[in-house]
């Protein structure tokens, strides 16, 4: 917590961001003038009804997509006018993704999946191998190095994908319903892991969730409705959160 109060650096800034999908003749506005500042070290939960534009917003933040209108700054760089290639580099260095469906490469082992971002960032071999191994241990899968994704449970796959998201040591972790495909116990383990990353390593975490209980872990809660931000509120104090958990 201490880190967030000290660091006031704005990591991500959205200024009147619009995303309009074109479905044939019809225009579908998924985001309608969203403005938001996310500071370094924040743990943000994005909530809202299905179709409210959560994924759209997070994909824009992760530079997977570009806004139709408005400006988006990532580490004070205007990404709306960046080339594909620069976007990929920036994305690879600063953002780690955790998806609902894990999205591991099916033909690569757990270890190779974690190695992939390191190879893309051209880490030297020795360092990359060391780091991949450490990360697998960190997520508690030191003994599953050679397993293909199909040889892992859902929770294990999600842990591999968290390790992969961490590999290139990005400042930001974007998680789109990371527990959506997991049972509540495993889901909580995954959230705990993200929570530890936020607390111990000062990662900035942006997590989409439908689960209000899980949203309690976050530091700030952003609620979307019909492509617009309804509320931005600090969530319950950490102390209270523990109490809340006890009663859970």
């Amino acid at each position, binding site marked *: 917590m201490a880190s967030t109060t000290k660091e006031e650096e704005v990591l991500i800034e959205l200024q009147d961001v619009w995303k309009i999908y074109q479905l044939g003749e019809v225009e579908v506005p998924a985001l309608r003038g969203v403005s938001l500042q996310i500071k370094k070290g924040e743990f943000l939960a994005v909530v809202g009804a299905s179709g409210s534009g959560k994924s759209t917003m997070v*994909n824009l933040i*992760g530079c*997977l*997509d570009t806004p139709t209108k408005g400006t988006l700054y990532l580490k004070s760089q205007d990404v709306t006018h960046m080339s*594909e*290639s620069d976007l*990929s*580099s920036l*994305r*690879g*260095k600063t953002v*780690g*993704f955790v*998806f609902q469906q894990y*999205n*591991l*490469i*099916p*033909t*690569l082992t757990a270890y190779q999946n974690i190695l*992939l*971002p390191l*190879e*893309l*960032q*051209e880490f030297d071999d020795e360092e990359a191998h060391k780091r991949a191994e450490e990360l697998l241990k960190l997520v508690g899968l030191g003994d599953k190095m050679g397993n293909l994704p199909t040889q892992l449970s859902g929770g294990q796959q999600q842990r591999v994908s968290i390790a*992969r*998201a961490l590999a*290139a040591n990005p400042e930001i972790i974007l998680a789109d319903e990371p527990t959506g495909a997991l049972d509540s116990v495993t889901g909580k383990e995954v959230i705990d892991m993200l929570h530890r990353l936020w607390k111990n390593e000062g990662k900035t975490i942006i997590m989409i969730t439908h689960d209000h209980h899980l949203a309690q872990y976050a530091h700030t809660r952003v609620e979307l409705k019909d492509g617009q931000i309804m509320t931005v509120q600090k969530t319950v104090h950490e102390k209270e959160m523990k109490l809340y958990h006890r009663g859970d």
Partner: protein
Amino acid sequence: MKLGKTFKHALNMVLHSRLRSWLTILGIVIGVASVIAIVSLGQSLQSSITSSLSGLGGDIVTVSPGAARGGDFGPGRVDREISTTKATSKAVILDTTDYQVLKGIPEILYVQPQIRGNVNVSYLGKAGSVSVTGVDQKVWALVTTSTMAQGRFLDSADQNVVVIGGRLASSYFSQPVGINKMLTVEGGAFRVVGILNDQSTSIYMPIQMAFTVIPNKVNNQYDSIVLKIKDQDFLDDDLAIITQKLTVSRHVTNRTMDFSVTSQKEQQATRAAALSTMTTFLVAIAAVSLLVGAVGIANTMFTSVLEKTKEIGIMKAIGARNQDILLIFIFNSAIIGLIGGLIGVILGGIMSYFLPSLLSSGIPFVRGNLLTVVSLNSVFMALGVSVGVGIIAGIVPAYQASKLKPVDALRFE
């Protein structure tokens, strides 16, 4: 991503869709193998013709009985045609009259009558049938373009002696035949005095002996007369003079001409031209199959890009640049091309080794002793072409893959 890693991921992709990769590779294998086999067959035919009628011989002219025909293919065909002519028409022959006429032409340096036929030979219990040529031993050495590997040419005093081809000496019988060994030819004993520097199984002996040895030959009737002219710069003129003199002496006209006068150079050019036309045609057919292989690669790559759309999205989400994706897919198809090329070259090599013996009965100008060699050049060219084909076939699908937008790719199921 570093090139080495890009290559590793491309290879991984090939290995993980093994069946499809192999089927695609097969397309290239067939194309490359047939090109290699046909090209090397063509090359060795070409070189066997040029070596049997070596670059020398520009001053050598052959007179044969029977009207000239275009597109004669080598000695085998010539023999057969002569015998057919003999069997069907009223004995078209060359004899001492023709010999004397030719001797009287001042532009001619040497006149060498010869007869030819097949005989039974044996050596140390192993027997076979080979071609024997009876030559005028006084001038043969001066007229022939063959060279001697061991021993000497025939001598005017020679009787029961022979000069034999290189392959007959080295590997035709169960044991190599050396100088001064005795060969049995049609029951008679002949001493080997020379071994030619070639790959033939032919035998050469004094023409007087040949008349007694070769079945169905009549004394002083020749199968052909080989001439050496004084100056090959006047070859065309000399050919005309020879033709004219023989036309007169044989009482024929241009229309009823019953002999032919050909120069080695001409024959060589005709055969080489016919051969290269045929080779080009066959290579074109083989190239079409290579093209089909290329289409196969392109098809596989398109399928693969489609199938891997989601993975491409994932890769991009974790930092892959367009060029990383592009290269992975191009490498993928280049690897398919390379593997196809390698296997194709090996298979083509094997095919071109066996092809001559399979075809020798069907194609008259391929004799048994054809040595097919796959040149290093054609190997590198085939590999280059197949990798190139792979890359070209892969470019469009790879480009398409690299241009996928990450969000769209990720949403793809």
